[in-house]
């Protein structure tokens, strides 16, 4: 059996000190490069930071897999949502003619877009996979305007780090970093499988973030805010998901 010799103790001390200062430097670097997620607090902060940092380094520019037309799910599943209420039904009755996507925050030209205006912008279709954290999934063809196009129109200020988006449903709001916000496949989606986006799947407007799980793909979006910090929003954890106990970053 090994003994606690003076040499062993000194070696253990040196290793511990090196480990602690290495960890300190790693945390400083991670903060500097924006690799610490907003919900990196408490018991699971370390694991969440490792996941987010590793995936940001590995996947900053990677493209979500696209599938062939024959792989589109014939039975996509529309997850249940809370009742949308009378206000929504009134808008729906008028074919969402009065629906607006308001873009504000740290932008040069705050603006508000109707569905018709959004449809007049350069269109992108993608056949991508949507997976729920529960374990089920489907593939659909999504059509919409790349979020990066809208961000170009409003002029994002250089200090912006996050895009915050809100649903017509109160209390459903999410945010993504600029790597995802400017990603070419992040789509302000208004069409699905060749038609308008059905209400059950988030119509008239849903944000598709195909490199993250379903709950980041907020349905019925009405509001987009560009910001340099998530600290003052809600409980300061970044979005509604961590306030309900779920990870802010859902790339896994």
């Amino acid at each position, binding site marked *: 059996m090994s003994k606690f010799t003076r040499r062993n103790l000194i070696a253990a001390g040196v290793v511990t000190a090196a480990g602690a200062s290495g960890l300190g430097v790693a945390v400083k670097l991670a903060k500097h490069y924006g690799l610490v997620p907003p919900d990196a607090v408490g018991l699971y902060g370390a694991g969440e930071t490792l996941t987010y940092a590793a995936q940001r380094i590995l996947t900053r520019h990677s493209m979500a*897999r696209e599938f062939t037309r024959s792989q589109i799910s014939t039975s996509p*599943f529309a997850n249940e949502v809370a009742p949308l209420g009378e206000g929504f039904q009134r808008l729906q009755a008028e074919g969402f003619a009065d629906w607006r996507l308001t873009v504000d925050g740290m932008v040069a030209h705050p603006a508000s877009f109707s569905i018709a205006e959004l449809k007049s912008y350069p269109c992108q279709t993608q056949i991508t*996979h949507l*997976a729920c954290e529960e374990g089920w*999934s489907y593939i659909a063809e999504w059509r919409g305007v790349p979020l990066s196009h809208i961000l170009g129109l409003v002029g994002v200020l250089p200090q912006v780090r996050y895009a915050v988006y809100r649903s017509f449903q109160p209390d459903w709001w999410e945010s993504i970093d600029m790597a995802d916000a400017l990603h070419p496949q992040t789509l302000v989606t208004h069409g699905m499988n060749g038609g308008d986006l059905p209400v059950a799947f988030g119509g008239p407007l849903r944000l598709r973030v195909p490199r993250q799980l379903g709950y980041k793909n907020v349905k019925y979006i009405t509001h987009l805010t560009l910001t340099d910090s998530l600290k003052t929003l809600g409980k300061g954890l970044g979005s509604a998901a961590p306030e309900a106990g779920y990870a802010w970053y859902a*790339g896994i």
Partner: protein
Amino acid sequence: MAEIPRPRHPSVVRVTHWLTTLAFFALLVTGVEILISHPRFYWGETGNIATPALFTLPIPTSRATFPNGYSYMLPDQNGWSRYLHFQAAWIAVLTGLLYVGFGFLQGHFRRDLFPASSDLSLRRISRVIAGSLRFKRPSEGEAWSYNVLQRLTYLFVIFVLFPLVIWTGLAMSPAVASAIPGAVTLLGGQQSARTIHFFVSGFLVLFLLVHVLMVCLSGFRNRMRAMITGRATKDMERA
């Protein structure tokens, strides 16, 4: 100065063993919690309750999207379960890297796990299996080492089951799938990855049960002492 006897298990093996135990327990509990929100499995890229299943576990669930015919629901704890699952996965992976690095560099695999080529005959292996089935107590020499069956089992767990459970876990991540699409297509799709992840986890649990059973049968206190302090028993020291 008296010669210090070699510990039964090197300190790195002991530390990584218990870290893995801790991480595995966390992964298992949270994995089950995540699973019960949709205890239905598919093959290929996609699957949901509107599509045919490969098989469905006849258990109650934690989510209204998948009622499964029971009159009650299990507690839905997916939030912290997912946080803990991934944190424990990091601990398991980093511990595993430390262990495998040590195993190769310090000769642990060569000395303790790679079977001697003379042991790799069907006759020898079947004799060890027959001995194990009769719960024959190991000889004194064997108590200091592993027999060929133990060696092959540990190697299978370390180099097949663990890498496979990590791979299939990562393949379920949409971001990892975007960076390394081949890691998903090679498995047959993301739902296939989920199904394989379930079965490999099942094999790991089976290994755990047999492992703990063997520890109990061959002397729980002595084996635990050897894995905690590194000290073998008086009997084993005489060997």
